[in-house]
């Protein structure tokens, strides 16, 4: 079953100015339910733009996006986030700093429900929040009333991850969510990611700068460059992929692309 389907997505920034940039160029991507796809590529390859298209923060110039067979291309971000969970690169971005841990979790808990005049954190929910926080092994379950702004970057990112997966979204988008952390914290978050995604069999798209992470996690891998998907690695091939092979492949495709570009120019 195809859960997420991107059909020839195009996006140009600063169109018709000197800064014109083709951010996405004919992107086609299909994710089956339960797929965990890692996305790699250099800066400006269009990885984050693609994530923003899926989440609805940006709309494509052309092309369409289907989730669960439904066209969501024009659906605003806040409506799409009913079934899309996100974790951002910046640990500050995914939580509300002046609110407490339990209040943040209550915000995440109401994601797929309509918000009303019910008290956000009642006794029953508090217990549920506690047991959920225990999974993180960061002792946050005993600090439910601490303001999130007081937590460290790693703790905040772990909380963001829990919040994003709290209501089992159809799609989980991770946008370099370990990039801003020190290595030991990044490792912890990577481990948690694996654990949380496996627990609910979440369909996940993860952008990363870290090649090793891209190889360790997920069942598929795509490589992007200059707004295009230049390499797709399926489940079987990915198992015996290495960084060296990946680099080689990258070089090969890039080289070919460059020569073909030159060929075009010379015509």
């Amino acid at each position: 079953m195809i859960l997420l389907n991107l059909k020839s997505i195009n996006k140009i920034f600063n169109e018709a100015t000197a800064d014109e940039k083709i951010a996405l160029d004919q992107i086609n991507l299909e994710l089956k339910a339960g797929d965990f796809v890692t996305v790699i590529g250099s800066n400006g390859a269009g990885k984050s733009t693609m994530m923003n298209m899926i989440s609805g923060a940006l709309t494509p110039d052309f092309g369409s996006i289907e989730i669960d067979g439904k066209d969501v291309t024009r659906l605003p971000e806040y409506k799409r986030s009913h079934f899309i969970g996100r974790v951002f690169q910046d640990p500050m971005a995914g939580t509300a700093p002046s609110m407490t841990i339990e209040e943040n979790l209550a915000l995440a808990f109401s994601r797929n429900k309509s918000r009303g005049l019910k008290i956000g954190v009642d006794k029953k929910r508090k217990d549920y929040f506690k047991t959920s926080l225990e999974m993180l092994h960061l002792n946050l379950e005993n600090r439910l009333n601490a303001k999130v702004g007081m937590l460290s970057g790693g703790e905040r990112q772990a909380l963001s991850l829990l919040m994003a997966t709290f209501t089992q979204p159809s799609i989980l988008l991770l946008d370099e969510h370990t990039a801003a952390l020190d290595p030991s914290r990044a490792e912890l978050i990577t481990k948690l990611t694996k654990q949380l995604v496996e627990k609910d069999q979440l369909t996940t798209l993860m952008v990363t700068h870290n090649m090793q992470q891209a190889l360790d996690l997920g069942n598929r891998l795509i490589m992007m460059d200059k707004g295009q998907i230049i390499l797709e690695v399926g489940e079987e091939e990915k198992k015996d992929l290495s960084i060296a092979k990946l680099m080689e492949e990258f070089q090969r495709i890039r080289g070919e692309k460059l020569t073909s570009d030159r060929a075009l120019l010379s015509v």
Partner: protein
Amino acid sequence: MFTAIFGSVEQGIIYAIMALGVYLTFRVLDFPDLTVDGSFVTGAATAATMIVLGYHPAIATLVAIAAGFIAGCITGILHTKGKINPLLSGILMMIALYSINLRIMGLTADNSIGRPNIPLLNAETLFSKFYTWWGSLGIDEAINNFLKSIGVQFVPSTWGTIFLVAIIVIMIKFIVDWFLKTEIGLAIRATGDNKKMIRSFSANTDNLVIIGLGISNALVAFSGALIAQYAKFADIGMGIGMIVIGLASVIIGEAIFGTKTIVRTTIAVIAGAIIYRIVLALALRVDLLDTGDMKLITAAIVIIALILPQYFDKRREKSRKAKRHAERSVAIKKKIKQEANDLA
């Protein structure tokens, strides 16, 4: 002196409702809403007009609250749907309300469309209705006799006003506290805290901003309606500088009582509004100052309230650093001595 301070406490409590509204926008939503100067008068004008036209003061007050709510919502729509800068949205609404308020009060005039003020001298107000009931209880005599018996010379003419407004403001405080803990309330707070985040949790931030501004201005208009009935007049100029007064109350309250939790902050804001009125009353008793200087005094109070905490923070940090430095130098000296001893 006592009468002046007693009066400012009464007024302070009524203005506290307005300050809670300002707290909702400035602090909770992080939206500097200048609609307040207009919506305060809208509340006063609507209540006064309806009372003069013969409606029950309670109904007049409720309609005034609704009018404030609508005004706030329009500011919110200007900002979210019209993509107009928050400050400018508020200013536009404030200036538009000036004409609207004249029109509202004009409904009481036979020979003109607009009207700049309405006296309520002999009209029935919430307060006069309340006094008839309150007077029959005989509480005033009881309290005043008791105070006189223990030697207090100045007693107020009635305790009814302070009792009534205190009950109202306490109720509003509890409602605001409760509201900010509901699912919608949490989402409104998150909107002020981190818009990007709450959008990724399926909240329509546009609607939350509009609702938040509506509720805030409903409180402001409520305060205006009560002040009109308390002072027995509504005037087109009574809202000038209201936003600064609200802000002064919020800042003073927060600086003195802290902002650890919502429950505490709302108390702080109410106390701030009362303290502000008392300070103002005391300042006006200095012969050099005149009622015309009120806005200048307000500006001075806000400036002081903004600068003083910074100054204290800096001093606290300095002394903390000095202490730490002293401890470290002692430790280092000790270590050197120890090493010297070890060598010897």
